[in-house]
């Protein structure tokens, strides 16, 4: 369809898939809730962009503004080179959405639900193809209410991709799923990326963001506290490893000060008998750590080293843990 292509702003200009500047959303009320307080970012075509943050950080609010479901209090948002408000349908034909919480109709089958959504789009893949891509083919004739949590999430994704969108929004697609189902969804998201689609997803799980996203933005209290490719954000911490250990009695402050002086240690924080150190090189730190603890007559009850994660980025920036409730 040449006519469509020539009127396609992206095809002409190669502009970003998403571009927002200074987004602010204040929910009216007493007192008003400043859910989003000045958010700006860009997502390039073909990129998988992750929005990471704790509960109430403003992830859903931001993504819904971009989906055209909420009006921002101020700021501008461009999606696929277009703005919401003038020709919304032409944006809607090219995006796919999965909301954080939608209860589809209990007594419709998986196939019927996908066909229904397919009928809304001018072009798209067949419902059968959408089910195949989300591994739901066997569930085609099952009622929605009989599906497992993971299957329901995959169906939500199937309804998002049945219009063959260029840009897909997924709001917490894996929250509450078991690790197996989560991995199945990751594969689906990765296949979007492989097909050159742009994905914007929100999540609580830093592991998920590290796995899937080319770039992430970490949200906290309505603001972006840092943004970039996951590995770079972690590298920017300076310390690529984390040592966590527990002792048989609370560690004294003097010991912590001593540990801080070990070369290659960047930061030590402790609560009671649990201690966490951000370090550069484990082979320098570990022998020294064990020696000092033995000298002071501490018994080690647990010791683990791991690579630093986005979680540690969040902790470094805010002093809090990302998934407080876990």
């Amino acid at each position, binding site marked *: 369809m040449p006519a469509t292509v020539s009127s396609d702003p992206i095809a002409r200009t190669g502009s970003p898939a998403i571009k927002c500047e200074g987004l602010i959303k204040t929910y009216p009320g007493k007192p008003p809730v400043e859910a989003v307080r000045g958010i700006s970012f860009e997502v390039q075509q073909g990129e998988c962009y992750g929005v990471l943050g704790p509960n109430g950080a403003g992830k859903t609010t931001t993504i819904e503004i971009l*989906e*055209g*479901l*909420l009006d921002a209090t101020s700021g501008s948002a461009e999606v696929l080179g277009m703005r919401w408000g003038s020709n919304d*349908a032409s944006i*809607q*034909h090219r*995006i796919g*959405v999965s*909301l954080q*919480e*939608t*209860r*589809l*109709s209990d*007594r*419709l089958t998986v196939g*019927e*639900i996908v*066909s*229904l*959504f*397919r*009928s*809304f*789009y*001018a072009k798209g893949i067949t419902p059968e193809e959408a089910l195949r891509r989300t591994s739901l083919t066997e569930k085609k004739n099952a*009622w929605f209410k009989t599906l497992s949590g993971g299957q329901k999430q995959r169906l939500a994704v199937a*309804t998002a991709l049945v*219009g063959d969108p260029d840009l897909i929004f997924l709001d917490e697609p894996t929250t509450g799923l078991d690790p197996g189902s989560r991995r199945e969804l990751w594969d689906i998201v990765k296949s979007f990326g492989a097909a050159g689609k742009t994905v914007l997803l929100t999540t609580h799980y830093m592991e998920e963001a590290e796995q899937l996203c080319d770039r992430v933005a970490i949200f906290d209290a309505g603001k972006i506290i840092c943004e970039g490719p996951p590995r770079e954000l972690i590298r920017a911490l300076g310390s690529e490893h984390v040592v966590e250990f527990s002792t048989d009695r609370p560690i004294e402050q003097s010991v912590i000060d001593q540990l801080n002086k070990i070369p290659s240690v960047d930061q030590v924080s402790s609560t009671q008998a649990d201690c966490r150190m951000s370090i550069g090189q484990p082979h320098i730190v570990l022998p020294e750590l064990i020696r000092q603890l033995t000298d002071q007559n501490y018994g080690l009850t647990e010791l683990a080293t791991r690579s630093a994660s986005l979680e540690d980025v969040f902790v470094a920036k805010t002093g809090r843990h990302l998934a407080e409730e876990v």
Partner: protein
Amino acid sequence: MCLLPKQVAIWRRKCKLHPIYSITLTRLKEFIRRPEAVFWVYFFPILMVLVLGIAFRNQTQEVFPVDVIEGPHAAQMKQHLVQSAQINATIIDRESSRKRLRTGKTTLAISARDPADQRSIDYLLDPQRPGALQVRNLVDDRLQTAFGRTDAFTATQTEFDEPGGTFVDFLVPGLLGIGLMGGGMWGVGFAIVDMRIRKLLKRYMATPMRRSDFLISMLISRLVFMVPQVLLLIAFSYFLFDYRVYGSLLAVTVLVFVGAMEFAAIGLVVGSRAQTLETASGLMNLVMLPMWTLCGAFFSYERFPEFFHPVIRLLPLTPIIDSLRGVMMEGESLLQQWPEMLVMVAWTVIPFTVAMVIFRWRD
């Protein structure tokens, strides 16, 4: 629809399903897969006709209980009364009789004021109670004749027994009206609030689905649900009670259509903003409960003071019931229903316009 399956398949591939068609179809499927909804919508009205039709059927000959208060002339009075087949007289003491009057076991008690004079008769009754005056006249006639009154003439009586005037004839249009109202409230208002709560409405708003397609589909599915509702009710009444529609079926169809649109529009307003089931059912009850009693579905609103009649006639349920009765019971033409139709059209246009202004599509 005599397309070959292959042609249908090609057609479907070329011009994918129209949203109106697919939304309507899924609404219908959702409905018929919910047996309890099917019961309430289709069989409950039939049950009502059955129960009320039997309870209020025209009795061939009613027998009225009458109390004769104990006294010197009681036995004789009873003697006079039992000659009438319609009176069932019992001799009883004054106290028990008062109690029976109070509880409605009898509607009339007779006694002699003066024990010496058997003609000093007193009727004790509550004139407000249905049938009480009729019994009084019956008894009075009987006793006057017994004590010597002569009739001026003897009239003959011919029984009129064409169908049409029974309670069922009165009830069926009322139940149709109630059904249309419930259908609009539940099928449109409640259904929309339910979709809003489940965030399904919001999900639809993230697709290019047109709002007008959505509304048209809700309307069409309403109209489709309604056809069996009307046909079943009329058919069952026909088989159970020999019910007939006197006016034209076309007129009935038009009225039912207008009524369905009216209540779909009102349902739309009711469902336009509510975000919880409590709000929705509160609003629905606010709309439905007064009309159940006021609008003459089960008993004529003529029983309310004259002063209220114009107001009652302007409520949405009254005109559909009145015009259906006009056509179905009295065989009037559609044109004669124009004032009612006017009220119904107003109740369609105004709520629809209001709903479009205040509707919460996205949250």
